[in-house]
């Protein structure tokens, strides 16, 4: 059991949080049906350079919460502060990789990946050149003039990831970025993302359904309840970095994984007390 002090000491590198979500609630109006409360009073605080994951059952409002953080959706209540600026309802402050790859089918891979540069006013030909290194790094070298329909599902996801990274924001939101990948590619991308995040000093928030992936990558895991989504608990992961594949076998890994699973409602061998995690969640939000 960690007190607020310890958590802060562990995670706080600078005094200003990279992302601070406070008491955000989102409801959807639905014609002929009751309004739907998707996200209920959620608060998160993520510090610069941290890697944080969001796990929760399908439909609990994770993607909705990302839309709010990215400024694409106005919450009914609450506030989003990115690097000290109130960005509630304002776009462009964070990098956002949507759940679907959303590559524009009429643009080549290079032109898709370079979109953010074009939007910032760069010439198309220049943008194409600029995106070569990141394409190489994402294993898409040689596919720059292919169209999205000519790529596999995993390649499209990597292209979407490349586009998000090229956007060049400090804070990056990744909504199930590795969903369509095989276990091996996934694992190598985990290493790659960990390195990249550290090299570029990125602050990453990741949504995933894969608990092992969350533990493998995160400094902290937020577990959400079924809809309406609330934070049920926060699980810190205290594994040394760089982690590598070997960390999967360590007892700390197993402990963190068991804790997340139990918060998600799976019965595991060593149950954790939910109430204590609630307190921790409160402490984090406070």
């Amino acid at each position, binding site marked *: 059991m960690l007190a607020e002090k310890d958590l802060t000491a562990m995670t706080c590198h600078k005094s200003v949080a990279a992302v601070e979500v406070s008491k955000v609630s989102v409801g959807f109006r639905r014609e002929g049906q009751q309004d739907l409360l998707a996200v209920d009073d959620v608060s998160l605080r993520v510090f610069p350079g941290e890697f944080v994951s969001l796990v929760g059952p399908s439909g609990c409002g994770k993607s909705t919460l990302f*839309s709010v953080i*990215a*400024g*694409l959706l106005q919450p009914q209540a609450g506030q989003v502060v990115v690097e000290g600026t109130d960005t509630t309802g304002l*776009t*462009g402050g*964070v*990098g*956002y990789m*949507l759940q*679907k790859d*959303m590559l*524009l*089918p*009429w643009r080549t891979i290079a032109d898709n990946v370079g*979109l*953010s540069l*074009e*939007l*910032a006013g760069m010439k198309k030909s220049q943008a194409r050149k600029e995106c070569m290194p990141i394409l190489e790094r994402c294993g898409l070298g040689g596919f720059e003039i292919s*169209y999205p*329909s000519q790529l596999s599902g995993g390649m499209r996801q990597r292209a979407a990831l490349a*586009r998000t990274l090229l*956007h060049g924001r400090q804070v990056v939101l990744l909504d199930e970025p590795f969903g369509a990948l095989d276990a091996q590619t996934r694992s190598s991308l985990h290493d790659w993302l960990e390195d990249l995040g550290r090299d570029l000093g990125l602050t990453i928030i990741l949504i995933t359904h894969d608990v092992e992936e969350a533990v493998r990558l995160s400094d902290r895991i937020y577990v959400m309840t079924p809809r309406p989504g609330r934070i049920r608990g926060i699980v810190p992961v205290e594994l040394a970095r760089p982690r590598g594949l070997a960390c999967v076998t360590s007892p700390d890994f197993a402990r963190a994984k068991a804790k997340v699973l139990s918060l998600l409602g799976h019965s595991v061998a060593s149950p954790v007390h939910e109430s204590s995690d609630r307190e921790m969640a409160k402490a984090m939000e406070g």
Partner: protein
Amino acid sequence: MVTARQISLAKAPRGDGSVPLAQIGDVQLHRVISSKRPSRAKVLVVQVVLVAAILAGWQIAADLHLVSALFWSTPFRIWDRGAQLFGGQRLDGTTIYSALEYTIVAAISGFLIGTVIGAGVGLSLWWSKTAEAVVSPFVIVFHALPKFALAPLLVLVMGLGMKSEIALAVALTVVTSLFTAQSGVRAVDSDQVKLLQSLGANRRDIFFKIVIPTSVPWIISALRINIGLALAGAIIGEMVASNNGIGHLIFYAGSIYDVALIWVGTGVLAAVAVLMYAGVTLLEKKLMIGLHVQM
């Protein structure tokens, strides 16, 4: 698991009488994928024979006075008339060549102007929901209106000649392209818009990078309908409001009981329509490939 019902279905005789090609236990296997395509030559031969039979039947029926050659003319007379005209005979102050040119210029101008204006207005309505709401009912009324009713008015305003003819072709084509452009705008994927917004795009970026690429295939798909409409507009325009063009030629032929000439005009019109249609289909394919969209 196979249920009893499925088994009985598998055993049931097939209504189409097709013979099972193989059997696994009691289950009969059929081939539904036809491996044979009809040979092109065979189809062409049947088509030629069909046309020849109709023409021969017509000629014979006219020779036997079963149909009136005066009202229906005969294939031989039509052929002779066609030969005279294409030989350069002047008719009502014009030749078939200049009439042809006149009609084609009118139809293509009407097609281009109508398509560009319609698509432009349809796309620009994306910018303002209010403008769209204001304009929509008028567009629907104009769409429902039989545009040929406008012909006399157009003659009064624009005078006799190609201008009013083009105006009629524009009136016919403009609504189709406006509607298809609007459908294209409505087909814009809101998630793609979301993506662009998350990358910091403004409304102008979204218009040029999402709305236009999404709508253009829709607009292109309306080109084929529009070329037919433009030709119809030009022909009707020529009948009502002009003294040149194939439409005028047909109208003139009717007024002097030159039935063979009516047929020649109609035949030429059919050829022009087929050529324009083929041209637009080719253009459509080229554009679609250029835009990299699957049809």
